[in-house]
């Protein structure tokens, strides 16, 4: 090989090496001098979180919650829904906060559009998203409170826990961690988070008058308030045109009432709730029907 070329190559390597060394030392000094003091606890908490960035805790991402839970004594340690009990325990341990119970929750679609044979009041032509369809006279469904069915909830779910089956969302109970992203995404507000221990539920979100509900849906709640009157635990309320159930109160009262609300409901829309098993069964039924 030409000695001149070897010389040139060696010189080049030496020069670049020197430059590298110079900047390396410079960077090392700068890193030392301008180091941002990080709370190691935040790092540790962040690592223990589920890391799904779902926003279910109400903070911007996992880091937001880690900072909040470490720096703000008011923030409870059990807000990481995907992490469940295990993560909550670890966070409580790290931050020295008192561990509070983690309730097993699940997203519940409060609509029975399919079952009620709700028709369409118009044909929707436009951008295929629920919010967009909702802008056009409340969406194509005849019931103004029903699920639109274009799958914005399924798209938003960070855990892929919602599947659209024949234009209706079905929650996969094994994947749902009740982070609440779908609740925020739904323009019709038909999804709510409910305790898995709940005994009864109303899969209908209508706030319309009974006579109007009867016109559009075969099973929708007609606001007769029979359940409100019959509940011995006074756990059912009728607020703003919607039946709401105080689940802790209902659970505390126990099975003694034999779910009289379910029995008395003339529309059979007040239903027994049997946790994951029931949801899975319901999902299978929908799949088979479609």
């Amino acid at each position, binding site marked *: 090989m030409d000695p001149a070329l070897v010389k040139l190559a060696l010189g080049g390597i030496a020069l670049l090496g020197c430059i590298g060394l110079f900047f390396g030392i410079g960077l090392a000094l700068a890193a030392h001098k301008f180091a941002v003091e990080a709370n190691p606890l935040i790092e540790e908490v962040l690592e223990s979180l589920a890391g799904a960035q779902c926003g279910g805790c109400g903070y911007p991402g996992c880091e937001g919650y880690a900072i909040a839970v470490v720096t703000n004594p008011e923030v409870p340690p059990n807000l990481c829904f995907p992490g469940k009990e295990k993560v909550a325990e670890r966070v409580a341990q790290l931050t020295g906060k008192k561990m509070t119970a983690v309730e097993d929750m699940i997203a519940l679609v409060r609509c029975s559009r399919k079952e009620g044979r709700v028709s369409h*009041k*118009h044909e929707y*032509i*436009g*951008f295929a*998203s629920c*919010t*967009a369809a909702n*802008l*056009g*006279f*409340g969406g194509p469904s005849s019931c*103004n409170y029903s699920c639109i069915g274009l799958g914005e909830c399924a*798209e938003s779910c960070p855990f892929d826990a919602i599947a659209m089956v024949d234009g209706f969302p079905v929650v996969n109970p094994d994947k749902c961690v009740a982070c609440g992203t779908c609740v925020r995404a739904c323009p019709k507000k038909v999804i709510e988070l409910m305790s898995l221990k709940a005994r009864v539920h109303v899969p209908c979100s209508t706030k*319309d*008058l009974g006579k109007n509900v009867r016109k559009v849906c075969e099973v929708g709640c007609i606001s007769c308030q029979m359940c409100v009157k019959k509940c011995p635990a006074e756990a059912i309320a009728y607020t703003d045109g919607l039946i709401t159930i105080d689940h802790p109160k209902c659970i505390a009262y126990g099975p003694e009432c034999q779910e009289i609300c379910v029995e008395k409901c003339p529309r059979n829309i007040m239903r027994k709730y049997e946790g994951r098993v029931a949801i899975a069964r319901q999902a299978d039924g929908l799949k088979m029907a479609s």
Partner: protein
Amino acid sequence: MTSLLTFPKGGVHPPASKGLTENLAIEVMATPDELEIILGQHIGAPCTPTVAPKDAVQEGQVIGEVTKGLGVPLHAPVAGTIKSFGMSGHPMRVSAPSITIQTNKEAAPVQYSRCDWQKLAKEELLAKVHGAGIIGIGGAGFPSHVKLSPPPDNPVDTLILNGAECEPYITADHRQMLERAQEIVEGALVILKILGITKCFIGIENNKPDAIKTMTEAAAAVSTPEHTVVVQPLQVKYPQGSEKQLIQAITGRKVPGFALPSAVGVVVHNVSTARAIYDAVVLSKPLYEKVMTISGKGIKRPANLLVKVGTKVSDIVEYLGGVTPELAKIVMGGPMMGFAVSSLDIPVTKTTSSVLFLAEDEIDTTPHSQCIRCGWCLEACPMGLEPKEVGLYVEAGRPQDTGQFGVFECFECGCCAYVCPAKRPLVQFVRLAKMKAKR
């Protein structure tokens, strides 16, 4: 005649389609048995009812007041009995709280007589405008008394009456300018007195030569060296009747983004609002009637109707002999900015200017496709925005990042969607973006 003015940027030329109704005189529709008066008709806080069910009310009696915040009172359009409070259909909000009044058919209509308004002070005139429930009935529904009290740091020197009526199909303002020219012009004089200024322009698109002639004569009759009312013919171009575009066309002044017209010393009122102000001040008659256009090939008998606020669209359809089998789409408002509805159980509000019953060949149901970046929407946008970018961002699931394209300056005129060769619902994209983007 002066040369034809227009706004400099963008705009489109949709077929006017006004022939169905432009030669039909305003017809008074028979009052239906029941009226549903929506409580929130204006921009601002909705009214709280001041009556109770079973109360008897007189025509023109106050039935709702705004207790807190911006707003105007609401009046009973007929004599009758309050039947119930409930929910009514609404083109944008789908359903809205309302008062139902059972009409008393025996009651004689109220007669209003002229008062000598020239003797009243500015404050008294303003109180009359507010008390009569006057809002911008051209469409926006902004309480007029607020527009008539501009902030003291922005002295106003020009009043513009908007008679452009650039939306296709609608001829309600056109007919009012032909039939009620003196009243509109006198309304303009009232506004001039309230604002304490002397100069008024009436902008009318050049496709209404008869209205320009009638209004010019009426304006000349009242113009004095102190008060000049001038009719200004305008080029036919949509959206000529948009406030900011109209101001720029007539005065050459450009209203900055997010600012009100008073920032450039101008106040704009619709010609029909000027007539309502005439009614309120000169006749002391509250606003509870509305001239509107019912048009399209989907209705048996297109018409310009004077209806009571609260009349349901279904009653109007019945009065006009029903719909034709070709009916494919119902739009409340104009075809460019109106809202498609799928119910006739919607009462007319103070701001409803038209209901269009469109047949299959008057609408386009082609599904939209991908943006081909042709840039036509950029050329058509009168605000100089980039609708295509907003659409792409919304489709990509990033509506929150569209603030950079000025979505909040968009007033949803629909020029972009009108020219789009891919039939993209650009206005819908913008509306979605506005919901999610930060100001």
